[in-house]
């Protein structure tokens, strides 16, 4: 139970679910009411999450607001929720961005408004669930369940190639997730094998003694699922397609929240469950992260479509986050968590801004614009702040995260930090080149000259984000302080395990790969007493 005495985390999940139920009962023709109700419900969730923020105890490293209830007793899975310094910022990011995304849909979504808003609320519940679930099965339920509303958001309200994009997104993600599910079950089996207790409680599973070779396989399964979600190079190609076809709000939540589930997954599950394997994988993942930083930036540079440009920039930014996570020291990991929030804000805002000009001009091609600063001065000012946040201008939020990541990474590995610093240069290249072609120069189309500047509703969407961009940039400590204890604990759990270079890693797979007891647990379901299915009969 939480300090408030109420199951506040459950309420964060249940309120949007109930809200969706209420919407179901409303006549679909009353669109204005439905929109306002969805906004009100998601805003209420945000306000509730502020209570979590306010009552969160920064000195506690472990889980807070923990709720536990029996769920599937037969396999030892329980309904277990909690937040710590790692999930708190992401929880807040989710509750903060959802109302804004809903507000952004007021003008862009014209058909099947009711179904759309139901999807948004379900999505919110799912996203929150992912960040607070501490039982592997429960986590998996949210992780996969959240795909369903997203599938519809892109597939129904998306652009021309929406079916292709949404299938690619869902199949790609699920391909990784299935392996993760198998690995989760294996972790539980192994735990039962050594302790005799069947459980999917993450807190209990952490610290278990899984043999090194087995860890490698299980870590790989988790890592694949998370890496696809991040997305890390070379698993990123679903992202540009999904973004281009998704409606604005879909892109905002996709970039703002969904991608963070991958990076969060590494921090919450893959690292603490398999610390030795994580250390062994560090060089490989760091290399992929650095490639992602540079590759994403270079490819972003030559995109013609604004959304594709922002999508590839996400690959680059998330590369920074991954690099920081695998530097495995306090600064880098805190920088990574902060950068997840920062990316959610700046990229979320970028998609909002792109959506705004798309609604006006029905195109996102860079070559169609030019000179917009003259016609849209307020838009230009907002766009400028967000652009500068995205390229890490000191004084805004992006810099703090990037700098901490670089400082931490430099401690762990100088070469990676230096290469990543090149990514900072390239970020300025693709963003400012885009800016020059879209916002400066002469307008290349007569239609651009008569556009209306952004109105009150649009300002209401952007101002909260811009204020946060400034606030985190100038005063990141309230967030950092809340991370400190949890991150320090995580780093302690993980750090110190030996790293392996690539050949060593491969040999680990080949020689030590399937440890006898692991193989036994997986492939001989009839053996006693390891079989939890037994109790089902």
């Amino acid at each position, binding site marked *: 139970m939480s300090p408030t005495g109420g199951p506040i985390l459950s309420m964060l999940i249940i309120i949007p679910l109930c809200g969706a139920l209420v919407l179901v009962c409303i006549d679909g023709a009353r669109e204005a009411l439905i929109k306002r109700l969805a906004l009100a419900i998601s805003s209420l969730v945000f306000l509730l999450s502020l209570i979590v923020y306010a009552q969160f105890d920064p000195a506690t490293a472990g889980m807070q607001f923990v709720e536990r209830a029996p769920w599937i007793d037969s396999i030892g899975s329980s309904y277990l929720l909690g937040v710590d310094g790692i999930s708190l910022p992401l929880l807040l990011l989710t509750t903060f961005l959802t109302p804004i995304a809903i507000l952004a849909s007021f003008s862009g979504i014209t058909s099947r408004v009711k179904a759309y808003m139901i999807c948004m609320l379900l999505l919110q519940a799912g996203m929150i669930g992912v960040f607070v679930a501490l039982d592997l099965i429960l986590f998996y339920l949210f992780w996969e369940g959240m795909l369903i509303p997203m599938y519809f958001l892109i597939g129904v309200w998306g652009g021309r190639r929406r079916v292709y994009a949404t299938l*690619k997104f869902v*199949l*790609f993600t699920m391909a990784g997730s299935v392996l993760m599910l198998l690995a989760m079950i294996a972790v539980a089996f192994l735990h039962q094998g050594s302790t005799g207790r069947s459980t999917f409680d993450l807190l209990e599973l952490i610290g278990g003694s899984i043999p090194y070779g087995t860890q490698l396989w299980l870590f790989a399964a988790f890592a694949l699922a998370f890496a696809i979600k991040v997305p890390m190079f*070379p698993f*990123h*190609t*679903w992202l540009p397609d999904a973004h281009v076809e998704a409606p604005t709000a879909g892109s905002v939540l996709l970039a703002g929240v969904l991608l963070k589930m991958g990076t969060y997954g590494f921090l919450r599950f893959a690292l603490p469950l398999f610390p030795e394997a994580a250390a062994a994988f560090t060089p490989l993942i760091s290399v992929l992260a650095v490639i992602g930083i540079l*590759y994403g930036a*270079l*490819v972003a*540079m*030559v*995109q013609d479509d604004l959304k594709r440009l922002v999508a590839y920039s996400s690959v680059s930014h998330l590369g920074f986050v991954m690099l920081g996570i695998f530097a495995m*020291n*306090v*600064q880098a990991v*805190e*920088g990574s968590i902060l950068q997840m929030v920062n990316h959610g804000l700046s990229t979320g805002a970028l998609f909002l801004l792109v959506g705004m000009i798309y609604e006006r001009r029905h195109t996102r091609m860079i070559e169609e614009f030019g*000179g917009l*600063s*003259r016609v849209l001065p307020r838009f230009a000012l907002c766009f*400028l702040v967000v652009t*500068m946040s995205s390229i890490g*201008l*000191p*004084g805004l939020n992006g*810099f*703090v995260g990037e*700098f*901490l990541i*670089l*400082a931490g990474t*430099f*401690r762990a590995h*100088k070469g990676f*930090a*230096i290469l990543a*610093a*090149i990514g*900072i*240069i390239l970020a*300025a*290249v693709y963003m*400012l*080149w885009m*800016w*020059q072609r879209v*916002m*400066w*120069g*002469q307008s290349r189309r007569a239609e651009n000259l008569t556009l209306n500047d952004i109105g009150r509703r649009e300002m209401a969407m952007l101002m909260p984000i811009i204020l946060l961009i400034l606030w985190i940039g*100038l*005063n*990141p*400590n309230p967030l*950092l*302080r809340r991370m*400190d204890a949890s991150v*320090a604990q995580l780093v302690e759990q993980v750090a110190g395990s030996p790293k392996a270079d690539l050949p060593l890693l491969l040999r680990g797979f080949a020689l030590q790969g399937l440890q006898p007891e692991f193989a036994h647990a997986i492939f001989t379901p009839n053996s006693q007493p390891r079989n939890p299915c037994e109790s089902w009969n």
Partner: protein
Amino acid sequence: MIWLIPIIPLAGSLIVGLIGRRMPRTLATVIACGTPSLSLLLSVMAFVRLLQMPAEGRLLRSSIGSWIASGDFSVSFGFLFDPLSAIMALVVCGVGLLIHIYSIGYMAEDRDYHRFFALLNLFLAEMLVLVLADNYLLLFVGWEGVGLCSYLLIGFWFERPAAASAGTKAFLVNRIGDGAMVVGLIWMILLFGSVDFQTVLTDAPTVLVYGSVTASLLTLLLFIGATGKSAQLPLYVWLPDAMEGPTPVSALIHAATMVTAGIYLVARSAPLFQLAPVSLEIVAWVGGLTALYAASIALVQTDIKRIIAYSTISQLGYMFLGLGVGAYAAGIFHLMTHAFFKALLFLSAGSVIHALAGEQDIRKMGGLRQFLRVTAGSFLVGALANAGIAPFAGFWSKDEILAAVYASGHGPLWVIGALTAAGTGLYMFRLYFLAFEGKSRLDAHMLSHLHEAPWSMRLPLVLLALGSATVGFVGVPPGSGLLQRFLGPVFPASAHEATAEPTSEVVLAVAVLAMAVGGIVMAYRYYLLDPQRSEALAARYPALYRTFFHKYWVDELYETAVVRPTVTSARTLSELFDARIVDGSVNGIAALAARAGSLLRRLQTGQVPTYILSILVGAVVLLGYLAFSG
């Protein structure tokens, strides 16, 4: 109190930028020019307090709290006011205020008057953060902040394609330097556990080994950052293009203040650089070569602002030359005098451009002195100071740098510096004679419109001219003037410039002065007495002339060697690798699955005889297997 100095213009920027349009224009102007006045007042008050303190302990600090705290690393919004910061803040606020006043007249007709002043105020705030920060990371906030303002002000008339690309170029070239600087800063954290000046600069001798590779690399990374911001080889290319911005911007940002940030960074880090003799040597050579290189380009350019821009690059080179031989105070002295005379030159040039409705080509000017007396007079003062003619300001500071170069045993660098002095006299007075003296080459229409600038523009000119004529005396006598004694305690004891014996110092000074005068005489003979001779000269050395005129083709070189390969490889990555290979394999796997599915589908024919046949075959094979294996 110190933290108020940058905060006030920041507030001014927000007010003028966000609600300036809704208030009377006079009020907006008063706010925009009032904030630098207040900052100047506060700086002067702090300066007076410093003077009242004992010479070795002159230091004011103030902090407005912690900025970032993560793990064992923390950094605060801390400000410091010591003699070095004091000089910088006074120059920034003083010159800044004059240029604000000048802009009232210069920008009066512009439809984005408010945006201009908001950005100018913002610039001032960021520049003051830069020079007043008590740690490297906060300095970096100002460093990038002034870069942003520079970008937005170069691109102020963003509808002009040239202005738009010049802005982007400035930001990106600077970003290369900044990337190196960031690496330097994170390395500093690893070495010192801190970015505070106090910690880093005090601990430097114990943490870093004198002459070690670490010391050299760390200081070089900082210096690469400095070459970007202060437009030195090889990252100077953005500054000439930056002249696309309004002229007050060129005066304030691209001459007097922002471009000197690199000098300030190196001077501030003097205790680090003292441990890295190799780095100092590189600083000196980059500075010396840049000075000569930029002066040679300035000799043949025809755009009034670009000539002054190359002159700025050249003068910044002098400053680095001074820093590189350990004459930190001399470098800062030149920074200060340069701020006056270069701002003066730009503002005078702005007055000319204003009078000629935008004309910047000196070949089309001539004889302007008769029409623009104040402008011509102030430009002449600026030109004399820039050329290093005694007793104008530039003479004293440049002389002190060159004396230190000679005394430190850098003979070749002294020769380079002296040659540059001759070149400076030549290009400065080529410009002066072609624009202000001789017969007018203006057309009749232009002549009838010629007018001297309004008072708001003339007043700063006169004040800056006075400054350019006299400010050099704070550094007299050389090596032990007021300024040097004031700055002395800031710099490492070993770095007090080695002074040659007085007689040879006078000889050297006279020699350099003679070179500069020689340049002026040559300009007089070639451009005023007999203009044909200059063309003959260019014709006699066509290769040299074209090299200077085309600026050594460096822009073209960067375009071919850096920009185009990057874009081409990015396109290849995107169109071939990403679309075909990465995405292709994803789609390929999907297609494979679909193909497999459609193959398997054929099994399900729906025809019962086929199924029965399959079952039979299967059963036979199974039975056979069991029979033979059993």
